[in-house]
């Protein structure tokens, strides 16, 4: 089943390469022209990678925060990471420092939310989402303030914050991908401990899991990836929320499967969304991809609240 899904992702990637503001015909002679090789292919691969990161981190967040509605967006992590990114842009930091600053902001933000919403290891899901959303609003207000204050130097900040997959170089892409694969494998090794974390704190500890260490490690890995994503593409909402649920519905709750399928489905979903954002406006203009993922995600969010309220909410 895993190979079938992986194949699906690859097919999506290949098809997406042929759609865009200037359509490349499947069988035309200049398939391997410069536009495709230097711009579209890395962009499509990048959207698959970012989508994978978002799905993967969403799966981790939902588990360690014990909340089916948790993801980078609803916990405020991506909002704060965006704030970190904007601040480093404003202060003119070197390109390579931006993800680092975004990470520091995001990890502080999520630690804050965690402390606010947990008492003796029990996390109140309502407080968590509430404080996460407030943190998000707070962060975007600060960003709004910075935007007005530094009006001219940040022309494309709006587009950045709506979520968009911009130009990436092959080098950036490959480094990011290797980094992701490394973190993915490190986290996947812990899948059995992660399963145990779905139990209450007392049971998890007495079952032999060093809860604090496993949780901290997972927090850092998920937040690292989220900050990296945000610093490259801005906030892309809801993928981290939807995708783990789809995987769980289809392939069960065990984290080994959930981590793998969330990554694959996240990749598929963002690749499709990005392709749609490229072709949906006939004139050739591009929609920020965040609009499409948020639309799809919003619908799913309501589905979750209506259909599964009795089962998943607690």
């Amino acid at each position, binding site marked *: 089943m895993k190979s079938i899904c992986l194949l699906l992702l690859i097919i999506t990637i290949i098809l997406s390469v042929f759609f865009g503001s200037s359509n490349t015909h499947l069988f035309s002679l200049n398939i391997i022209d410069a536009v495709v090789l230097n711009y579209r292919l890395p962009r499509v691969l990048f959207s698959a990678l970012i989508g994978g990161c978002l799905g993967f981190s969403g799966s981790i967040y939902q588990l360690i925060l014990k909340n*089916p509605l948790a993801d980078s967006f609803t916990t405020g992590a991506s909002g704060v990471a965006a704030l970190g990114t904007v601040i480093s842009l404003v202060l003119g930091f070197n390109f390579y420092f931006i993800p680092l600053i975004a990470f520091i902001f995001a990890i502080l933000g999520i630690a804050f939310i965690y402390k606010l919403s947990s008492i003796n290891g029990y996390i109140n899901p309502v407080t968590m989402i509430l404080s996460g959303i407030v943190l998000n609003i707070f962060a975007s207000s600060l960003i709004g303030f910075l935007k007005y204050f530094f009006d001219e130097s940040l022309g494309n900040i709006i587009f950045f914050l709506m979520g968009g997959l911009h130009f990436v170089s092959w080098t950036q892409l490959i480094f990011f991908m290797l980094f992701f694969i490394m973190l993915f494998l490190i986290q996947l090794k812990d899948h059995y401990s992660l399963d145990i974390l779905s139990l209450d704190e007392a049971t998890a*500890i007495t079952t032999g899991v060093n809860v604090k260490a496993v949780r901290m490690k997972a927090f850092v890995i998920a937040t690292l990836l989220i900050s990296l994503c945000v610093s490259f593409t801005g906030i892309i909402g809801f993928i981290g929320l939807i995708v783990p649920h789809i995987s769980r519905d289809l392939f069960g709750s065990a984290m080994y499967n959930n981590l793998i399928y969330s990554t694959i489905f996240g990749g598929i979903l963002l690749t499709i969304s990005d392709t749609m954002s490229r072709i949906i406006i006939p004139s050739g203009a591009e929609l920020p991809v965040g609009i499409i993922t948020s639309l799809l995600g919003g619908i799913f969010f309501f589905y979750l609240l209506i259909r599964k309220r009795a*089962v998943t909410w607690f």
Partner: protein
Amino acid sequence: MLYIEDVYIERNEFTLKLEQLQFSDNCKVALLGENGSGKTTFFSIVTGLLKAQRGLITYNKKSLMDIKTHERAKIFAYLPQFFHLIFNFTVFEIVHFGRFPFYNKRLGNNQQKEKTDKVLELLNLTKMKFKRWSELSGGEKQRVAIAKTLNQETPILYLDEPFSMLDIKHQIDCLKIIQCLNKLVILSTHNINLIKNYVDRFIFFKNGNILADLNINELNEEVLNSTYEVPVKRINNYFMFS
């Protein structure tokens, strides 16, 4: 063997004091006392989930503080009063969580699964093996939690009100299973009449102190009366509260 000496903990205006307690292997112990008398805090202390301000807890003469989390899970298993789980794992998966401490050992994966199947069989859960957590009734959930705890195969079991949601038939079934185990079992309960046929030792808590530590022959109305502060009569060897 569990040994406790001079343990003292104070938190949230509640203090628990345990002077000296010794629990030998294979003993079955019931903890009794009104709500908030210290039963759950007792479990938190002996499992190391809460650190006492002072005192000594040892397992086979080894201090609890010197035993790592992973090793502890092979000495005792704990079923808290509010066993809780997020996401819809299957009954098999949940019970199999109990095998976690042995996961690193090169005991083949299939052997581990066989053990889980045996525990499911023992608690009569085999037919709902693939049911999901949210599809279970309260009592079924509790039996699954008990099965998970048993599946850890530890020489000591701590069960905090393990039967609060079970019907009388399943309570008796579980107690019979527990009675036959070659383990030290310490459980808390409010049902003295049911439990007294299955355990050897009764410890009564009152306001964070141990009021009495009795065996079955020493059990009497006065102790129950001062524990629960309700009039107690003994009729046909049953305690009637009125």
